[in-house]
């Protein structure tokens, strides 16, 4: 009987996971889904409030070697500063579930941001993976750019060298920097969609 109840419970769990499967990938040009979340200081942040500004979403997991590649080299922080100096809003999002690699509470996130000398506008906590699944974020890092009209303009990797090797940052095309600069000049984003690379987002199962 126990065997049966386990099997039944497993079946229910599978069914549950399927029901909670992520929404479709945000299409380029489509309206970005609004969300609301706590940031690391306990402040409530809502995407809609940034209408009129360009918003960059960055999925983060400090334990992921691919994230470390871009933070240890200072590449991510440079990109953040370049974006915010142009007036863009940078939202770093942690969709890692409690107990899994990279999950942080507010204090831990503050320590991480300070220690890495990072410069996001907000560091958002998404322990239930609601934002992550809503945007179908699959890897850390994964980058999404939303324009002032609330439309998705870029979705994918940070650059075109899908490795964890710091030496590969030099000479790589930083898709976020390029997309932001094209958007500033009023041009279409030439590479609007790439394959994100890195670790899988550690969602709650």
């Amino acid at each position: 009987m126990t065997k049966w109840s386990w099997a039944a419970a497993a079946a229910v769990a599978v069914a549950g996971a399927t029901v909670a499967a992520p929404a479709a990938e945000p299409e380029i040009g489509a309206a970005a889904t609004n969300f609301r979340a706590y940031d690391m200081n306990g402040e409530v942040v809502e995407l809609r409030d940034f209408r009129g500004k360009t918003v960059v979403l960055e999925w983060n997991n400090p334990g992921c070697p691919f994230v470390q590649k871009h933070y240890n080299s200072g590449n991510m922080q440079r990109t953040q500063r370049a974006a915010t100096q142009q007036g863009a809003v940078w939202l770093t999002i942690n969709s890692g579930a409690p107990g899994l690699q990279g999950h942080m509470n507010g204090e831990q996130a503050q320590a991480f941001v300070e220690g890495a000398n990072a410069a996001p506008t907000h560091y958002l906590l998404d322990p239930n993976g609601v934002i992550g699944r809503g945007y179908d974020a699959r890897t850390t890092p994964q980058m999404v750019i939303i324009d002032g009209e609330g439309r998705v303009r870029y979705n994918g990797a940070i650059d075109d060298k899908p490795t964890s090797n710091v030496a590969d940052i030099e000479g790589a095309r930083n898709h976020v920097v390029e997309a932001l600069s094209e958007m500033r000049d009023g041009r279409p984003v030439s590479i609007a969609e790439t394959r994100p690379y890195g670790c899988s987002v550690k969602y709650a199962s």
Partner: protein
Amino acid sequence: MIGLRFGLMTLLLAVLALTGLPVAAQTPGAGPHIRMELIPETSRPAPGQEVTLAFASVPEEGWHGYWQNPGDAGIPTAASWTLPDGVTAGDLRFPVPERLMIAGIMNYVYEGPYALLATLRVPENAAPGMRLPVAVKLDYLVCTLEFCVPESAELATELTVGDGAVPGDRRARFDEWRAALPRPLGAQGSYQVNGDAFRLEIPYPADAEAEDPYFFPITDGAIDYSAPQMVARDGDRLVIETGARGAPGAIEGVLAIDEHRGFVLTAGPGNVAPAPAGAAAGGERPFAWQTALLAFLGAVLGGLILNIMPCVFPILSLKALSLAKANAGEGNPRREALAYAAGVILVCLVLGGVLLGLRAAGASAGWGFQLMDPRVILLLLLLVVAIALNLAGLFEVAAPGFVNRAATHGTGSSFATGALAAFVATPCTGPFMGAALGAALVLPWAAALAVFGGLGLGIALPFLLLGFVPALRRRLPKPGPWMGTLRRILSIPMFLTALALAWVLGRQAGVDGMTLGLSAALLAALALWWVGRRQQRGARRQWAPALPLLLLSLAAVAVVRPAPVEAEQALASGAEPFSEERLEELQREGRPVFAYFTADWCLTCKVNEKTVIETQGVRDALAAADVAVLVGDWTDGDPVLGRFIERHNRAGVPLYLWYAPGADEAHVLPQLLTQAMLRDLAARDAAS
């Protein structure tokens, strides 16, 4: 399977989280999590030769490496080579991967030992004895369910230009690794995107096996990896529906047909008709209790229907008559019905258990597996003939003392009748049982056994009803002389069953086997007739003289053998199986040779065979020109054939080779043959 494992993992994590255990507190240890070794197939490659290198990889327990397309997350393995001048390396070749779903994110991985292969080409001008140092740096990702670690492996080996000889043990290992690589399907697929829906069509022969088909895309961005794939087989095509991501032009991918075998193919955009409803087969099979319940109910229904099949009905009728007798005052109908049900269900469970045991042992078995052995068929034939003769009134069965004692309570004989009915019913499990039993083969063993039990319950149901509902029993007619008449009439379907079994025996064991079986049946009939005569005369020890004859007929069971396979698979126009030795022999004889390589799963091959090679015109032309035809069957991926095919045409089957008399090199014919092409070649080489 994956769904189940994932579900259990989910549960485990949930339990651990609830109890507050530190699930992910440990950090990944130092050192490589994939043990990797670089092994060349030969250390002495010949000039101008290709040499295959293997990266034999063993992931640490709980860790996995990634396929060339890692899925939703992860990184494919990259190789950077340091090679001597003139030596070139081909792309890495990956074995068929496994699916690993983690929290809704699909990963294409290897959880057990695997080997990536790469091919080096040694230049023509390499001097024998020259040393060729080979170094390679592999960058790859290795993960557990929680962590990922990018690793690098710097591997080196030294080759010496030589004679290209391959040591036997190494050849065997490489054959095994090559067998795990997807084979080229030799046919193009096509796909269609409708909004979010992606529909892929793959040419695949209707009779080729595909246990759990799944499409692993190599091209990124075409489909939604984490969406379930619905697979349907529709004639000579396999239709896979899943979620779309984009339409990147041609899509390359691997169609896996079970855990270890698959085919590489490309698919271009086109119109793909949906598969007819109800054609779904294989693909996603999440285990759910609904599935088990449905299968159980299907099995009960199937068992119920079996009651009216000719092979079961007569036995059941006898039992019904005995219940009618019980109505007249003898016996205990409820207990008889229960004993009968117990007999039926027990035999079904035992057969099911044996089947599950075979399944666990890796044998490919289906329901009725015991019927694939001609010895079992012959045994059934003799049994059925005996039952039919008994029904016809030729002899009576006087059970031995202990059975008689049991039978006085009615339960013993009822149990035996039930067991007999269940065993005899197996040939009748027709297509209507297929679905439930197919489900039983993929369900966990407890659920599968429940399905077999359900089958037995279905067979027993009418009798349980008769036994427990006196009103029904009262509607049964009173015993009388009509019972004898009915009994003789019922022998007719039993004789028909014997006829069907003789036919099956003939299919399996050939004409000789069928003759042997009919002789045994005749012998048994004569013996039983003799018994019947003695019974009429009231002789003592009525069975004694006939027993040796019966035993002799049973001995035939031990003798009968399946007909040799070659007899069934008659090859076209006197063709012979391909071997390189035979090819050389024929070439020495100066005969033109047409060698073709085919496989059951290769649709193009089948079309060419049906429409060109096996047509009368081509056969006559080949025969007239005295062309020898050699056939290489690559269905099972025979490595010897594989190496030969690889030498001539890297794309796999179909491969058509024409050796003109005296020519060393084969003329490789196009993959789409025409009758005229073969007739012209035959005419030319006959004239020369």
